[in-house]
């Protein structure tokens, strides 16, 4: 288990991470979402022991990670810009990591190389950005560490490969009880993949959500009233967002689901049903609650990229 407590990291006068506190369960896939410059990579480097904390603590299995090789043996960090020496091939890279990580599984590496159809003898410098990322993911998976930290590892991969990578990560988590921490600026990328997600913005943890328990203070209802006007609803419930398509109106309403349904039923609706909120919608409306304004031109909050 990873525990992050009041983690703070400053670069000069710029506070990249401000008092972030969260925990990551063992055997889970943990997503970190945020816009560019939000502090995702910095947080991952703190988790991996690359950066030294200015304040707070990061504990892996109750031990400090920074400068602790015993703990670092259990974690592999894949940077958003992987570094490879000139002339290094996938095979050489495998040998290098096998040298540093005792549990490196060469058999698994060979299998993955074949599955991903990469030429292990070709210099990595001649690989495309996506291929290089694949090669690095293969290495990360083959290291067989308890924790895998991936910084925007899925970005730049085509849909098919992305699916394949996700599948392999799932398998790793299921088979080895590995904990995967992955960052992305694409919320949808992680929505169907992670067990829990945090959103950070300007170095602060804005929101944390367990995806198997999408408990939100907002609900989405679709309603059609007999007299065709829904103005009355605005007085009865706390409508955050309103959209109308024909006679059916979609409302994002803040409050308790049971109470909201009960209130709306008083207006004898022809149609009344609740629709599950997407992760993005939850983040967007929760963010509003935290005082973050919506971008008028872009429905997605905080410039999060929607694919």
């Amino acid at each position, binding site marked *: 288990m990873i525990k992050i407590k009041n983690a703070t990291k400053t*670069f*000069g006068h710029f506070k990249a991470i401000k008092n972030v506190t969260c925990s990551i369960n063992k055997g889970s896939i943990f997503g970190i979402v945020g816009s560019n410059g939000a502090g995702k990579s910095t947080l991952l*480097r703190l988790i*991996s*022991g*690359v*950066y*030294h904390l200015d304040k707070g603590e990061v504990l892996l299995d109750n031990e400090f990670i920074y*400068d*602790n*090789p*015993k703990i*670092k*043996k259990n*974690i*592999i*960090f894949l*940077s958003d*810009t*992987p*570094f490879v020496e000139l002339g290094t091939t996938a095979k050489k890279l495998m040998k*290098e990591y096998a*040298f*540093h*990580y005792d549990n490196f599984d060469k058999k698994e590496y060979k299998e993955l190389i074949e599955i991903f159809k990469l030429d292990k003898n070709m210099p990595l410098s001649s690989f495309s950005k996506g291929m290089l990322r694949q090669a690095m993911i293969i290495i990360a998976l083959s290291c067989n560490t308890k924790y895998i930290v991936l910084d925007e590892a899925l970005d730049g991969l085509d849909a098919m490969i992305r699916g394949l990578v996700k599948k392999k990560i799932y398998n790793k988590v299921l088979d080895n009880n590995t904990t995967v921490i992955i960052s992305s600026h694409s919320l949808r990328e992680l929505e169907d993949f992670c067990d829990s997600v945090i959103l950070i913005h300007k170095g602060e943890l804005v929101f944390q959500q367990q995806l198997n328990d999408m408990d939100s203070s907002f609900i989405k209802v679709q309603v059609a009233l007999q007299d065709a006007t829904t103005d009355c609803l605005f007085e009865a419930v706390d409508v955050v967002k309103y959209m109308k398509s024909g006679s059916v109106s979609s409302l994002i309403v803040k409050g308790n689901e049971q109470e909201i349904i009960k209130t709306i039923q008083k207006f004898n609706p022809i149609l009344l049903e609740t629709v599950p909120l997407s992760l993005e919608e939850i983040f967007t409306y929760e963010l509003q609650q935290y005082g973050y304004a919506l971008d008028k031109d872009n429905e997605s909050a905080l410039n999060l990229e929607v694919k």
Partner: protein
Amino acid sequence: MKNIFSKNVFKQAIKKLTLVSILTGLLSTMITTMLISNHHISGHNMLLRFDFDYMLYGSRGYTAVGVAPILLVVMFLCSALFTYISFNYQNKRSSADKFHSLPYTRTQQYVSRIFAILTMLYGVIILTMVTAWVTLNTSDSIYIFRYLILGTLGFMAGTTLIVGIMATAMSFTGNLLSNFTTATVLLFLPRCILFLIGMLITQTSYQIVNLNELNVFLNPSTNIPVGMILDVSKLWQYNGVSEILISPKSIIYTFVLGMAYLVIAMLISNKRKSELAGKSFINKNLSYAFAGLCVMPILSFSAYHFINRYWFTNNLSYSISKFPITLIAFSLIIFFVICIIYNGRIKGIAKGFLVFVLTGVLSLIFMVGGSAVADIQLHKTVKYDNVEYVTINLSWEKDFTNTPTYRYGILLAKDVKLDDKDLIKLLTKSLDTAITSIDKGSDSEFPLHFGTNFWCEFHMNNGRKVVRNIPVHIQTDVIEILNLLLADKEYNKALSTMPEVYIITDYSLDSIPKEYTQHANAIYESLVNEITESNGEIERRILPYYFHYDVFPNSHSNGQVDSVVVRGSFDNTAYISRYEIDNSVPKTKKVYMIKSFELNRQKFNEAIDIILTNTVDYTNLNMSVFLLNKDDDSYRLHYNYYDKESMSPNQLIKLCKDLKTIDIDEFDTYYNYARIFINIGATDKSEYIALDTYIPISEEVFNYWLKNTSN
């Protein structure tokens, strides 16, 4: 240990350096082999034109640096380059991410890499030196084995220092430019300040207190790389770069300093922020400080110039000349240029100006402090009744040919303890007189730059030591000191001791061809035996020239005699002793002349035949004949064919016929002899002949030519 060193990182670092190390090793050994195989001594002397080295080792012997000059490149450049290659991962975010996430401590990463760098560099140095040793043996070249060992250690120490400095620079800077510039500043700045302070001390004391005798921090020779650069740049005069390299004191100091830098680098590396990658410095203030350090030598020199002028003139307005002000302006420009380069913008530069002012103040404080130290050093008087004993190093001297000479006897005598109260009293009195003269300045009755100097180490009763170069201005005092030195049996014996053969590395005899230098052994052995057998009668002839001029005037020859020059080393100090082969050593002189004729006989006969058979164009002939009387060292007569007034072609034929009758055995019976120089220029019919030899001459021939000369 496990948390300090990692085998894995070490192996990886070795792997990374393998290619560059193999290339360096190959190049280094090849160049060394090539230079030695081709007897390229003059080549490296031209390359490394160090006067003292050349004087000491002549044209045949190899200096410690001269054995493998390529190792200077290894020490100065490869050390920095290898360190850069091993630690440049810190300069890039992606590589810093990778290496800092690996399961090793920062200390393990650092120590293992340093071990790898030093292993490779030491390997190259040892390989080169071993190659040099093998090549020297196979090519029958002259060298001192001990110098090879000390040279190897010297290069290793210098390498350690530069690796340490480069590692320190890389531990708090984050890109190539800042890595190398900071390393340069770290290497030179401290020594530069110390050097200026040291110069203040020696300048203001008229060299009574000498830089080379100051402590390890002020003596520039202790830092091998910087000392070498200062020596080559002629900013400071020492005994040559080789002497710096092989001095045990320099080796130890440089190695310890290198280790200190390595430890500092480790401590900083452990605290180094990964995010420094790609940036010059972690913050702007550090870049201002760096710019300040860069200009500190210039500001310090400005302060030095000002203080020096003030010290000698006591005139403040005279001291503030254009020169130091120009230096300040110049350093201000450099300061701002550096700030702009490292910060990439002008904004906030006003804050940097404060740093510049602070640097200026600091430089002034350093120099004023140095001046105060100089004053204390100068006025440190020695009370003669507090002196337990004194040792006197007569140091090097200039012989009759004006060649600086470091006598073997002087080296032996410099450690002889002298406790004669009269001698100590005279020396302390002379020191007081010198200090008073300096204080009086131009009002002094003694000219401060003249006088016979004595390097004295006063060993006090309380165990302390005071080293002073005492100028003695009164001639009677000089003679008295020298006589007191001779009166000390041990000192006298040491001065008269000649080097034992096994430590001799090179001879130089004018009329023995260079390729036959090994024959000089017999001549030197004869000289040693003859002096030993004389029971001290002729020993004074081999005393240093101090005594020849001041104590035994006219005891030295008139400069036309040959001499044997013996080079070697004693107690890790190189020496060069010249012993005359004159009439005071008749047996040796005879051995010398016979050897000379033996070795030149064939060439001599060829030359005479060429002249007699008239196969040579006489315009290409130059022949000089000096007739010498057995009892007289000076040349009696001088014939020079080229000088037509001295000798006509007919006379030349007659002379050659007379010379052809000579038999070497007649050296025993003949009373007189001649020294002959023949140069026959190359023509279509003959090859170039050049020879310099002694020949025996019968009385008949001698007398004939004595009468028939126009001289």
